[in-house]
């Protein structure tokens, strides 16, 4: 509804106010008159009337007033905005995620206008003051108006790039909820669920975009494990130690089906491959059942799409599990030769090396690598894991 109003009025604040007016009217009227047959159409019609009233009262933009007044029928019977609604929503998502806006603004604007969260809710989710968040939203909306950021679905030559921007905003939102980058709570499932809802919406709006489906699958699969990721003390639990019976089997089933549907379109992308990796993990009833050969092959594909030392490191782990610690170590040495510098402060690099050395029985070398990792690790749960492993190998030393 807000999306349609933004399109017809071109005024973000007016659109939001009128949508709120319409909701207030619904709360007043529906309990008395009963819920209308098409509640969405009813709300849009009421909101449009409010917009007309306000524009008329403001006595500005006579042309705008005419435009709003003539869009769609007033009785809401065969509401054309129902069809346009989906496209308007997509336009809104693309506009909110326009690269001319800063990424924090893109996220805030998406939550405010697409997800319909209130400013205080968004401020709480990002641990910012309400005033700061309100200011961020005001600035973003002002820039859209002043700089002439178009309210539209990008033309074909920009579609891939801009879709990528929308997908990254949704994934950022999900990760903000999944591994809270700040604050005392490790996981804020509310944000994850909101991100999933928006990804669901986006993939329904763009059925020919397998990456949208891939992102949805990835989020659904990761979120399916959320109950097992935190122990009773509120600490993170590593994947291999999670109680797999507390994973959400229904969500895993849905996620796997989504990955397959995306891959059937035969235009693989990074989100689809990451989702396929998540599906491999999710389908293993025990950590020992994991199909590491498949995961290693998927990381190799991902690495070809988005080369990064972190992807390579994950690949080395998978190779080490699939083909044995020797093969994993060989991969790791290759990686160190190429990207040693960019990985030198990354605790997982010595941690992975230490685990491979431990499995080879090279306890003295493993102990050294565990100590390197312990010096770099920042989260308490992972520090405890590394300390325990270090204790084990150190105890066996003469």
């Amino acid at each position, binding site marked *: 509804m807000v999306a349609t109003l933004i399109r017809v009025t071109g005024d973000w604040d007016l659109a939001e106010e009128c949508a709120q007016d319409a909701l207030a009217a619904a709360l007043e009227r529906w309990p008395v008159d009963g819920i209308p047959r098409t509640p969405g159409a009813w709300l849009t019609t009421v909101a449009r009337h409010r917009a007309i009233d306000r524009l008329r009262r403001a006595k500005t933009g006579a042309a705008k007033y005419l435009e709003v007044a003539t869009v769609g029928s007033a009785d809401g019977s065969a509401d054309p905005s129902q069809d346009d609604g989906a496209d308007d929503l997509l336009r809104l998502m693309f506009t909110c995620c326009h690269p*001319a806006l800063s990424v924090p603004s893109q996220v805030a604007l998406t939550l405010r206008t697409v997800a319909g969260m209130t400013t205080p809710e968004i401020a709480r989710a990002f641990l910012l003051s309400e005033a700061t968040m309100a200011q961020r939203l005001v600035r973003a909306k002002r820039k859209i108006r002043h700089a002439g950021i*178009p309210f539209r679905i990008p033309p074909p030559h920009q579609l891939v790039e801009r879709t990528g921007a929308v997908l990254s905003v949704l994934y950022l939102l999900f990760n903000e909820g999944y591994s809270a980058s700040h604050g005392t709570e490790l996981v804020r499932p509310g944000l994850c669920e909101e991100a999933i809802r928006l990804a669901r919406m986006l993939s329904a709006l763009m059925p020919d975009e397998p990456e949208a489906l891939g992102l949805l699958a990835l989020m659904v699969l990761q979120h399916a494990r959320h109950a097992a990721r935190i122990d009773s003390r509120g600490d993170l639990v590593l994947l291999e130690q999670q109680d797999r019976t507390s994973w959400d089997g229904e969500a895993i089933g849905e996620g796997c089906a989504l990955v397959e549907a995306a891959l059937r379109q035969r235009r693989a992308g990074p989100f689809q491959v990451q989702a396929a990796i998540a599906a491999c993990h999710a389908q293993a009833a025990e950590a020992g059942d994991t199909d590491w050969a498949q995961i290693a092959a998927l990381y190799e594909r991902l690495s070809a799409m988005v080369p990064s030392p972190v992807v390579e490191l994950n690949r080395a782990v998978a190779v080490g599990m699939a083909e044995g610690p020797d093969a994993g170590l060989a991969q790791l040495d290759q990686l160190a030769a190429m990207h040693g510098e960019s990985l030198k402060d990354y605790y997982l690099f010595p941690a992975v090396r230490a685990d491979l050395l431990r499995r080879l029985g090279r306890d003295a070398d493993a102990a050294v690598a565990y100590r390197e990792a312990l010096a770099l690790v920042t989260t308490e749960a992972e520090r405890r894991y590394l300390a325990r492993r270090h204790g084990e190998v150190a105890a066996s030393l003469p």
Partner: protein
Amino acid sequence: MRYLLMICEDEKALEGRSNEENGAVLARYGALMGDLTERGILLGGERLQFSTDATTVRVRDGEVLTTDGPFAETKEQIGGYFLVDCKDLDQALEVAAKIPGAEIGSIEVRPIWEM
């Protein structure tokens, strides 16, 4: 909507260019400006002399203060501008990306404050 595209470049890098290189860049500017004029987008555009030729004027308490050089000491200086009339920001960004200066410096795209 009208936008001012400010072409910001490192003047030291420009000074180091050979005559042939300068000629090639100028030819690209000429072709781009011709195309934009034909499409009714370009309203005006000029190259500026180097910032060492700039003079900055300030008036404080009614007194005119004149100083040599640009107001701010930054690595990149405005070396020229295009004034364009575009459908929306996306079109202005597309034009900006075609300006040769974007490849070595940057283009600041500013909407005109319409009165």
